[in-house]
C-alpha cells in the first residue's frame, strides 16, 4: 500500500490534474490524445518511474469513441501503468511512440490495420495482417461479420443438402 501511495504521488507530481483509476488490476490514467506523446515521454524519462517497456498497445472500440490503451511497465521497480486515451472524431490520429519504445512499431501497425488509427511519425505504417486493398477495419464494432457459429452452420446446412 505504501508503494501505491508513493506511486500516486509521483504521478501527481508529473500530471497535477490526473485521477488515478483502475483498469483490470493495474493503475490507469487517462490522457488527452493531443498530449499523449508528451505525457508518455514524461513517463518514459521520469527517473522515479522510468517506464522503459511498452508491454502492450491496444485499442477498444467503445462505439462512441475508440479507446487506446498503452500498457507500460518499468523493469526497475516493477510498476505497471495503463495509459488510456479516447479518440472521438475521425480521422483517428495519434502521434507514434516508436521513438520512445521500439516495440510500438508492430503494435501501432496492428492498430492501424485493425482500427484505422493512423500514427504520425511511424517509420513504416502499413497494414500488418490484412491485405493492402482490404476495406474496413475488422476490430471496429461497425465492421459487421457473420457470427462464427452461424457461418459454420450455413456451410453445414449446405453440405447437408448436398448429401441428400
Amino acid at each position, binding site marked *: 500500500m505504501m508503494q501505491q501511495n508513493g506511486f500516486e504521488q509521483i504521478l501527481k507530481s508529473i500530471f497535477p490534474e490526473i485521477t488515478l483509476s483502475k483498469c483490470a488490476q493495474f493503475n490507469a490514467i487517462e490522457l488527452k490524445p493531443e498530449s499523449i506523446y508528451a505525457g508518455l515521454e514524461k513517463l518514459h524519462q521520469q527517473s522515479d518511474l522510468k517506464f522503459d517497456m511498452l508491454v502492450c498497445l491496444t485499442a477498444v472500440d467503445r462505439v462512441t469513441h475508440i479507446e487506446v490503451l498503452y500498457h507500460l511497465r518499468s523493469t526497475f521497480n516493477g510498476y505497471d501503468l495503463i495509459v488510456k486515451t479516447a479518440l472521438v472524431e475521425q480521422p483517428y490520429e495519434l502521434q507514434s511512440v516508436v521513438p520512445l519504445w521500439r516495440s510500438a512499431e508492430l503494435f501501432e501497425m496492428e492498430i492501424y490495420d485493425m482500427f484505422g488509427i493512423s500514427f504520425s511519425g511511424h517509420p513504416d505504417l502499413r497494414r500488418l495482417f490484412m491485405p493492402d486493398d482490404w476495406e474496413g477495419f475488422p476490430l471496429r464494432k461497425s465492421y459487421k461479420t457473420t457470427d462464427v*457459429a452461424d457461418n*459454420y452452420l450455413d456451410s453445414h446446412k449446405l*453440405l447437408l443438402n448436398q448429401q441428400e
Partner: protein
Amino acid sequence: MNAVKRYFSSIFNAIVALLKGMRLTGSYLLHPSKILTQQYPENRETLYIPERFKGRVYMPHDENNEHNCTACTLCQLACPNGSIQIISKNIELPDGTKKKVLDRWVYNLGSCTLCQLCVDACPSDAIVMDNAFEFSVYNKSKLIFDLNRPGSKLKEKKTEPQV
C-alpha cells in the same frame, strides 16, 4: 607459444566433442531395438489408444436401440463452430400430450474441433467422445453423420437418478 597451444587444444577438443556426437548416433545405429517407429496400418490390433482419446462425438445406444438425448439443444448452443444441428419433431404420446423428441442429431465432423464442450454441456450424458479416428473420405458432405440410429428413441427413465 600459448597461442600455438590454444590452436592445437582447440582442434583436439573439437575432435573429441565431434566424436562424442558420432558415438551417440553410432550407438543408436547398433541398437535397432530402440527404434520407436510403428508401422501404422499393420499394427491396428496392437495400437494403443487411450480410452479418453477424442476422435469424434458419439451417441451410445443400448440394446433396445434407445439413447439418452432429449433434444434440449444445449450441445448445439455449446458448440463454438456450429458442427451440431438438432432436428426435433413433436410426437403425440398415447395420453394425448405432445412431446418434443429427437429426430436427427446431425453432426459435422468436418468442422468439429473435438473440444468436448458439447459433451461437457450435455445434461443427460447422451453423447460421449469416441476413440474412432479413421475418417478419410473423398467428399466433405460425407463427413456429416446422424448420430442417432434410425428408429431409436429416448430411453425411458425408470428410476430418477436424483442426486
